[in-house]
């Protein structure tokens, strides 16, 4: 249906102002595309505030890694609003364009206009002029090859913007998905965006709707997240939007719109200010940090890193515990069976007598666990493979906990096979290799926690004056 072409057909741009659609067949420009609703359209809408869908096509030459936000322009009452929303674009042809939701909400605020303008300038200096001037829209349209969208007069102030993922290396046209803004009732408005620049056909709302519908992940009702598409592959007719990342996000105009749902079910966070949004995000980071047991640093990257490690550890622990429960249950069942079946208990007996309840479990699942715990003065590393437990203990030199720790290990029904360690610099460091005694079902976190607890207690008990 649609074909890409490298040529820009200016004629199609003319039609933009009339029907609100602009076909922009050309992709190959190096400059960001800019899509704007022609003012007559909105003016025709009467008093209804029309929103202009602006698609800012990131400049090819721009460094994609810089995450330029998209600009979204709100056009109210025929004036091109100065509010822009720039969507961050992560460029990688095979990656999903991240839909940075957080950038959306507060950015409609007029207060952020300055920031956004600044961004625009960074991105493309000439945008500033274009945006601010209605009359330059046609020029802009000529320059930019983004499809324009028209806003329905019925449409409230909701506005949509898309993420476009410009191609870094090729002239492949990023396809924009035209999103349809929802009116109050949630139905799709007539706002149609031509997702395909390369379309030489005059866009018609029904056509776009078709395209839109055929988008894999986009729903007509104003899908929240666009489909992730392989942007390299653009030549298929019906799958145009597969090229480039289609991400469109619903833009809540915080100032204008009431808390109308976007109909997509995503929990809409409405932040009045960018600051609130930041604070909310920071609060989340703090909450995450509070969940992990060994927080090291307070910077975001460390928090995320610790969280990743902790999640892996939790998964290991869950697996370990499941295996233990299974073992226990089977062992118990077996012993019950043994008691009730006297006749045929010969084999069972021998099986029971043999300390090998592990045997039946070693095949499918080898029990393994590994976790670390740190306290102020102590570090514990517990590794379990099958029935062997390796404990590494490092403690600040205050007291020699070897005896205490050995006792605890015995209490945990671990049979110490190997111990080594001593004073290393400022720390006492020990390594214990032990075997789990039969019938015991200790698990890694229990061992670690108990050790930490005991050592801490010891530290608390001994006055700090004694030291060797």
């Amino acid at each position: 249906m649609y074909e890409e072409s490298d040529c820009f057909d200016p004629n199609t741009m003319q039609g933009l102002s009339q029907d609100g659609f602009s076909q922009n067949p050309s992709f190959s420009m190096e400059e960001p595309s800019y899509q704007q609703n022609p003012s007559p359209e909105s003016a025709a809408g009467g008093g209804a505030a029309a929103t202009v869908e602006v698609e800012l096509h990131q400049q090819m030459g721009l460094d994609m890694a810089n995450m330029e936000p998209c600009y979204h322009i709100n056009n109210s009452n025929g004036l091109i609003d100065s509010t822009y929303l720039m969507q961050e674009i992560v460029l990688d042809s095979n990656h999903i364009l991240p839909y940075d939701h957080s950038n959306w909400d507060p950015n409609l605020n007029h207060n952020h206009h300055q920031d956004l303008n600044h961004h625009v300038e960074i991105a493309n200096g000439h945008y500033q002029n274009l945006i601010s001037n209605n009359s330059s829209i046609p020029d802009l349209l000529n320059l930019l090859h983004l499809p324009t969208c028209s806003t329905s007069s019925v449409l409230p102030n909701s506005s949509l913007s898309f993420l476009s993922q410009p191609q870094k290396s090729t002239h492949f046209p990023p396809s924009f998905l035209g999103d349809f803004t929802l009116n109050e009732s949630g139905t799709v408005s007539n706002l149609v965006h031509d997702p395909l620049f390369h379309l030489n056909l005059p866009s018609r709302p029904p056509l776009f709707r078709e395209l839109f519908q055929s988008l894999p992940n986009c729903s007509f009702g104003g899908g929240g997240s666009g489909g992730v598409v392989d942007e390299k592959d653009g030549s298929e007719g019906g799958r145009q939007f597969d090229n480039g990342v289609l991400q469109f996000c619903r833009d809540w105009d915080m100032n204008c719109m009431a808390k109308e749902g976007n109909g997509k079910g995503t929990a809409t966070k409405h932040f009045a200010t960018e600051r609130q949004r930041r604070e909310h995000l920071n609060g989340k980071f703090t909450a995450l940090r509070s969940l992990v047991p060994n927080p090291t640093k307070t910077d975001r990257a460390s928090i995320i890193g610790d969280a990743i490690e902790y999640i892996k550890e939790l998964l290991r622990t869950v697996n370990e515990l499941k295996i233990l429960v299974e073992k226990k249950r089977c062992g118990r069942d077996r012993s019950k069976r043994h008691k009730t079946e006297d006749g045929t208990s010969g084999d069972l007996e021998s099986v029971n007598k043999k300390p090998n309840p592990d045997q039946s479990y070693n095949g499918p699942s080898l029990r393994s666990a590994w976790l670390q715990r740190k306290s102020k003065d102590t570090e514990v590393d517990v590794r379990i493979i099958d029935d062997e437990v390796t404990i590494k203990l490092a403690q600040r030199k205050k007291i020699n906990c070897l005896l205490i720790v050995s006792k605890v290990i015995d209490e945990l029904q671990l049979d110490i096979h190997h111990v080594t360690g001593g004073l290393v610099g400022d720390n006492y460091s020990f390594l214990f290799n032990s075997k789990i005694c039969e019938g015991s079902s200790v698990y890694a976190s229990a061992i670690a926690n108990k050790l930490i607890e005991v050592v801490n207690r010891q530290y608390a008990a001994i006055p700090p004056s004694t030291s060797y």
Partner: protein
Amino acid sequence: MSKAAIITDAIAYIEMLQKNVQDLSNQLFEMEATCEEQLETPMDAMDAAEEMKTWGIEPEVKVTQMDGTKLWIKIVFEKKTGGFTKLMEAMSVLGCEFTDTSATTSRGAILITACLMLYEVLEPY
């Protein structure tokens, strides 16, 4: 996904996993409590002594004085569950503290080499 959504999901996932761990441990604990005693396997002790004999390992104790309050000690004895701890306790009663320790189990015997620090003057005996 947005950053905030990722963080939110991570928080929820961690909490869910923690809850799972807690439930499983409780379940395990209950099972342990209600479970009857499994057949004990005291084979280890017997095996250890037999092994030692098989390999010709004799229990021994060697002590050397290094300097003022430091001793170097080497002990070989039959491996028993909890044997190491008992030894440690005994030494601490005597007023010694293990500074550097190495304990290895092999062939039913356990070899302990350690530096002992005396913090009490012992009557030589």
